[in-house]
């Protein structure tokens, strides 16, 4: 199971790097969310996989009768998903607003904060 998940993480990272290298900011953001999912899976896999085991005790039990899953990585992933969701929502709104104001999401054209120096055009 670890091997499958590791391969999946690798695939996600590869796809996200491909997307993040694009000039379009929206593609970059899609790459980012894939990368964030890959990071979440890293936590989940590194925290040991226990197939089919519950993370909670039965009502009235003091100690687990069977194998039990570690709840901590799950809690970490949950926190990271929530935070990632908030940040991604902000980034999407930012992209929308930037598109409305600047008129493009091509990062090569987005040079308002750092305008090209005169003379730098020549080496383009």
């Amino acid at each position: 199971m670890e091997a499958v998940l590791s391969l999946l993480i690798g695939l996600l990272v590869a796809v996200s790097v491909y997307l993040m290298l694009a000039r379009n900011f929206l593609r970059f953001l899609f790459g980012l969310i894939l990368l964030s999912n890959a990071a979440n899976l890293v936590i989940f896999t590194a925290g040991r996989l226990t197939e089919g085991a519950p993370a909670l005790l039965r009502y009235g039990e003091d100690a687990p009768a069977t194998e039990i899953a570690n709840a901590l990585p799950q809690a970490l992933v949950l926190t990271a998903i929530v935070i990632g969701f908030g940040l991604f929502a902000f980034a999407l709104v930012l992209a929308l607003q930037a598109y409305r104001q600047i008129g493009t999401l091509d990062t090569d054209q987005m040079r308002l904060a750092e305008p090209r120096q005169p003379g730098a055009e020549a080496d383009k």
Partner: protein
Amino acid sequence: MTSWFLAAPLVIPFVTAVAAFLLRNSETGRWVSVAGSAAMLVASLLLMAEVLDKGVLAGQMGNWPAPFGITLVADTLSAVMVVITAITSLAVVIYGMGEVPVRLERLGYHALYNAMIAGVTGAFLTGDIFNLYVWFEVMLISSFGLLVLGGTKEQLDAGVKYVALNLVSTLAFLAGIGMLYGMTGSLNMAELALTVPQVENQALVTVVAMLFMVGFGVKAAVFPLFFWLPAAYHTPRFSVSAVFAGLLTKVGVYALMRVFTLIFVGDVSFTHEILLWVAAATMVTGVLGAAAQTDFRKILSFHIISQIGYMVLGLALYTTTGLVGGVFYLVHHIIVKANLFLIAGIAQKAAGGNELSRIGGLYKAAPFLGLLFLIPAFSLAGFPPLSGFWAKFVVVKATLELGHWFVAFLALAVGLLTIFSMTKIWAAAFWKPHPDGIEPSLSRVDRGELVPMMIPVVGLAVLTMIIGLHPEPFVQIAETAADQLLDPTAYITAVLGEEAAP
């Protein structure tokens, strides 16, 4: 009781943020923000006094014993950073009364501001690595809001780059946490200090250390990872740039200092050697970048990068003197850099711009402002007897002690180039006559705006002078901080109890 000392500087800005948000449509909101910052300063000074008196403090939140619950820890470095955060926060919030327009206050400027301060403070105080990630996010999301508040085209463009690169760095940090947990089964930093050396596969530990170095390196704006900073810091309001310039990158430096003295010290000859050359490259590229700029705030932004190099250099040397220099530099830099950005704001109001070719004549119009600029500018360049001189002196001394002649030479040469940039600003903004032939004057600025803008500038300049003329107590505090960083026994026993000592 200890827990309250630790929690107060965190709770106060959060309460202030909520209150300021509810009162955002009235004048009171602004004053609530000022009162909150002042209260936080008192709380942080109490914490500092307690730490200096009793040594490292640790409090278990919710009474869950470490390493299972979330621990707040204040050693001397954390306490110093919290105090300096509170000072900067108070200075900038007072400045904001004159500079931040009512329109932005209604959009929730003070709420975002205080939430960001809470995030910064939390990052300094937490003793749990995942909790550090959460505080980073609190700080980041509020800083995103502050950066684009107002929504001009430049701000949105800057926001895109700032958000994108910071999110990538956060993910590197997060993946690092996951792998660290997988190897050690712990998230508590004190326990990690004990368990990481026992990990069989030390090579993997170094790989994870690199993930942390990249993650924090982006936040700290070190050499190959700094591109978001000069793209963003010159676009928002001056209050926002000042508090960003003062505090945000320093959280990255603090995090580097924490994990590379407490957790990842197994392969110092590899990790700290990288840090050494990163620091050298950061100093040089930052100052050269500044030399190419012609905008007041852009020059200052590049100087943040160059100065970060000195702090990382202090850490990379990994000796007492080096860390003393690093810590001293951190404190000095926050005060001086925030002050320079605040002065840039006043200069803009008086002369009508920030582009050096379009302004001038400020010295004639406002000689006092000229003096106020010279104090932090010379301090930044490292002139005695200002705070920057001692900071540079200790760092360079530590570099020479280890025989890194070339790096020491670079550090001194960068100091010289810093003077070049500062004199460029001085000559263009203060000395040369205004290109449009108009006389800039402070009397053009509304009194109600000017007074709150001047008070923090004067206050921070006085603080720079005090540190410069009377460095003894500050160096002593930095020495205590450095000793605690190099020998984390006190940190570990404070968190886990006496029996856990290595």
